[in-house]
C-alpha cells in the first residue's frame, strides 16, 4: 500500500509538473523569436505580441518552478532507498541542472521582466534567449538522469558498498536513449507551446477580427508543423532504441504476448489488458510494428511471454511485465493526438497558402479546441516511458518496490497526498483562471503610441 501510494504520488505530481514544463520551454523560445522579429523589423505589433505571450510565459513559469521543487524533494522523501543507491549517478545531473540551468533561467527571467527600461534593447533581447537556453539546458540534464533509469550506462558496481558508481560521465551524456529522448522532449515542447500560441491567436482572431494576432498565428504554425513531424520521426527512432534495451516496454505497447515476425500494429483492440493474452485486434496495419520496433520491414518482436521467461532466468522469480493496458492505450493516445496535430497543422498551412487563414472560422474554432491535444500527447508519452519501465525503478538494477523510503509510514504518505492534492488543485485553478484571463486580453499598448519611439519601455513590475 505504501508503495502504491508513493507511486501514485510521484505519477500525479510529475504528470502535473509536465503540463507546465513543455509550455515554459517552448514559449520561452517562441517569445524570444517574437522579440527577435521586433528587434529586426521594428514593427510595434511584434513588440506587443512579445509582451503578451511573455506574460503568459511568466504566469506559467511560476507554477512550473514550484511544482519542480516538489519533484526534487520527492526523490529523497518517498524514494530514499533509491536515492541512497543511485545518488552517485542520478544526483550529478540534478546538481548540474541547478547550477547550470536553473540559475540561468531564473536570473535572466528576472532581468527580462524587470529590465525593459534598464537594459539596452540588444542586451534585453539576449536575456530572453538566455531564459530559453536555460529551460532547454534544464531539460537536457533531467533527461540524462531519466535516461539512465531506462538504460543504465557509464557505471560500475562498487566492491565495498555494492552500489552503482559513476565511472564514465561521457557515457551518461551520450546514452542513445538520452540523445533521442531529449530531442523528442524538445520537439514535443515546441509543439505544445506552438499549439498554445495557435489556440490563443485563433481565439483572438475570431473574437477581434484579423488585425493583431495574424503574425503569431503564422509563426505558431510555422513552428508547429515541422516540430510535430520531426517529433514523430524522432519518437519512432526512440522506440527502436528502447526496444533494444527495454523490449518489454515496446512489446507491451502492442499487447504482443507471442513473438511475431513480421509484426502488425493494431489501431485498437477489444478486450486485452493484463490478463487477456488474446485480445481482438481491429484494423491491423501489417509490418508497422516491425518498422516501429526494429526499423526493418520484417523485423522480429519478441513477445511478452518469452521475455518474462527470459527475465526470470536472468533476475530470478518475479513478474517483469509492465501494465499492458496502460502501454497499449498510452501508445495510441500519443500517436493519435500527434496525428490530429499534424492534420490541423497541414490544414492551417493550406489556408495560409490560400490567404484565408484569418477568416476561416471553422479552422479558428478547431485550433482553439486542439490545444488539449499536445497535453494528452505528452502525458501519454510519459506514461508509455515510465510505466513501461516497471517493475524496475532503474532497469535491471533496482525494482521499484525496493526503492521506496523504509522510514515513511502509510499515514505520512496519506497526509502528504492530501496536502499536495489540495495545493495542486488550488494552484491549477488559479493558474487556469489567470491563463484564460490573460489569453483573452486585448494586446497592450506598443511604443508607437508614445510620441517618442525610443523612450524606454515600462518594465513588467509586480
Amino acid at each position, binding site marked *: 500500500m505504501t508503495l502504491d501510494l508513493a507511486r501514485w504520488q510521484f505519477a500525479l505530481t510529475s504528470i502535473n509538473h509536465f503540463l507546465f514544463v513543455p509550455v515554459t520551454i517552448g514559449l520561452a523560445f517562441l517569445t524570444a523569436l517574437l522579440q527577435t522579429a521586433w528587434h529586426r523589423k521594428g514593427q510595434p505589433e511584434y513588440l506587443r505580441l512579445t509582451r503578451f505571450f511573455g506574460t503568459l510565459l511568466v504566469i506559467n513559469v511560476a507554477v512550473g518552478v514550484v511544482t519542480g521543487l516538489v519533484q526534487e524533494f520527492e526523490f529523497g522523501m518517498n524514494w530514499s532507498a533509491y536515492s541512497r543507491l543511485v545518488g552517485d549517478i542520478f544526483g550529478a545531473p540534478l546538481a548540474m541542472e541547478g547550477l547550470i540551468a536553473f540559475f540561468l533561467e531564473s536570473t535572466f527571467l528576472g532581468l527580462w521582466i524587470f529590465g525593459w527600461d534598464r537594459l539596452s534593447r540588444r542586451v534585453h533581447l539576449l536575456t530572453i534567449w538566455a531564459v530559453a537556453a536555460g529551460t532547454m539546458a534544464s531539460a537536457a540534464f533531467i533527461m540524462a538522469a531519466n535516461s539512465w533509469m531506462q538504460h543504465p550506462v557509464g557505471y560500475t558496481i562498487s566492491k565495498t558498498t555494492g552500489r552503482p558508481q559513476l565511472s564514465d*560521465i561521457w557515457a551518461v551524456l551520450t546514452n542513445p536513449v538520452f540523445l533521442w529522448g531529449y530531442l523528442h522532449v524538445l520537439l514535443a515542447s515546441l509543439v505544445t507551446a506552438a499549439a498554445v500560441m495557435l489556440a490563443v491567436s485563433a481565439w483572438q482572431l475570431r473574437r477581434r477580427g484579423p488585425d493583431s494576432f495574424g503574425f503569431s498565428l503564422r509563426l505558431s504554425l510555422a513552428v508547429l508543423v515541422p516540430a510535430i513531424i520531426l517529433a514523430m520521426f524522432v519518437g519512432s527512432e526512440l522506440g527502436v532504441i528502447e526496444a533494444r534495451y527495454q523490449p518489454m516496454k515496446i512489446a507491451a505497447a502492442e499487447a504482443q504476448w507471442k513473438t511475431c515476425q513480421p509484426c502488425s500494429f493494431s489501431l485498437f483492440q477489444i478486450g486485452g489488458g493484463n490478463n487477456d493474452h488474446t485480445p481482438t485486434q481491429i484494423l491491423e496495419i501489417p509490418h508497422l510494428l516491425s518498422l516501429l520496433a526494429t526499423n526493418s520491414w520484417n523485423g522480429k518482436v519478441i513477445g511478452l511471454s518469452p521475455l518474462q521467461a527470459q527475465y526470470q532466468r536472468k533476475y530470478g522469480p518475479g513478474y517483469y511485465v509492465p501494465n499492458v493496458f496502460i502501454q497499449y492505450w498510452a501508445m495510441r493516445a500519443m500517436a493519435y493526438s500527434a496525428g490530429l496535430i499534424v492534420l490541423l497543422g497541414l490544414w492551417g498551412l493550406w489556408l495560409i497558402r490560400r490567404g484565408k487563414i484569418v477568416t476561416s472560422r471553422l479552422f479558428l474554432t478547431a485550433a482553439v479546441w486542439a490545444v488539449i491535444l499536445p497535453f494528452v500527447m505528452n502525458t501519454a508519452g510519459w506514461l508509455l516511458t515510465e510505466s513501461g519501465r516497471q517493475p524496475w525503478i532503474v532497469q535491471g538494477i533496482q525494482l521499484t518496490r525496493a526503492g521506496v523510503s523504509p522510514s515513511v509510514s502509510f499515514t*505520512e504518505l496519506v497526509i502528504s497526498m492530501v496536502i*499536495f492534492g489540495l495545493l495542486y488543485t488550488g494552484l491549477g485553478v488559479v493558474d487556469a483562471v489567470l491563463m484564460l484571463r490573460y489569453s483573452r486580453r486585448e494586446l497592450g499598448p506598443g511604443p508607437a503610441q508614445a510620441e517618442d519611439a525610443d523612450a524606454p519601455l515600462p518594465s513588467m513590475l509586480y
Partner: protein
Amino acid sequence: MTLVEFWFMLIAVVWTGFFVLEGFDFGVGMLHGVLGGDEAGRRAAINTIGPLWDGNEVWLIVAGAAMFAAFPGWYATMFSGLYLALVLLLGALMARGISFEYRGKHDSAAWRRTWDGLMTGGSLVVPLLIGVALGDLLHGLPIDASGEYTGSFWTLLQPYGLFTGITLVAICVTHGATFIALKTEGEIHERALALARRAAPVTGLVVLGFVVWTHAIAGKGFLPNPVEIAAVLAVFAAAWLTREDREGWAFTATTIAMAAATASIFTELYPRVMVSSTNPAFDLTIHNTASGSYALKVMTIVVAIFLPVVLAYTAWTYYVFRRRLTSGEFRPKQTG
C-alpha cells in the same frame, strides 16, 4: 583537503549563500505589509526583490541537489526522515513563490490581501522550518545502524531545532529591514530603518543565545569558534549602524551575521552530517554517506567552471537593479 571535505564545505557555502540572499527576501516577504503602509508602499517593498528572489531561491535547489549528488546517504536519510516537515516546507514555498507572481495579476483588494497573507506566512514558515531541520542535524535524531530515521514527526520538534528556526527568522527580519532601507527612499525607507533599529538588538540577544546553545550541544571544547563570535559581533554591529543611519553598512553587518550563523551550524557539525541520538556510532558522516571519487571529481570540474559564471551574472543583476525605489512611483499617475 580531500574531495569529500571540499564537497561538505561547498554544501555549507551553498546553504550560507541561500540564507544570505534569500534571507532578505524572506524578510521583505514578512515585512512588506508592515513597512509598506499602503498598496503603493507594499508594491515598492515587493519590487525591491522582484527581479532577484527567483534566482536567490535556486540556491536552495542547488543545496538539495548537491547533497543528493555528493552525499546520497545524507540526502536520503534527511529528506525521508524529515518527511512531514518537508511537506509543510514545500507547501509554504509554493504559496510564497506563486504569491509574488500572482498578487498583481488581478485588480482586486481581496485578491491582493489573500496573496499578501500567503507571502507573509510563507516567508515566515520557510526559514523557520529549514532552521528546525538544520538544528535537528546537529542536535541529533533517532537514526539506526542502517542509517534510517526511526522517530516520528514530533521527534523533529526539539527545543534546539525550534530555537534555530526562530534565530534564522529573527535574522531574516533584521536582514530584510536593512535591505529595504538600502533599496528605498522616502517614508518606506524611514519605516524600514526604524524597524531595523528595534529588531536588531533583539536579534542580537537571540543570536547570542543561539551561538551559546550551538556550541554547548556540539561539545567541542569551551572556546567558541571564530564564526560564532563573528555572528554575535555582526548582529550587534548592525544594531549600532542602524542607529547611525548607515544602512549600507548595516546591511553588510546583517549579511555577515546571517552567513556566520548558518556557517556555525556546519562548522560544529563537521565531519558529521547528521548526528544519531540513538548511538554515536550510527552518526552519518561525510565519509559514510559520500559518493565515489569519480562522481565528485566530475562535479568539482563543473562547479569550478560554472560557479564563477553564476556569481558574475548574479552580481551584474544586482548592479542593473541598484536604483532605490520609492512608494511614489507605484502610485497611479494624476491626470492633467
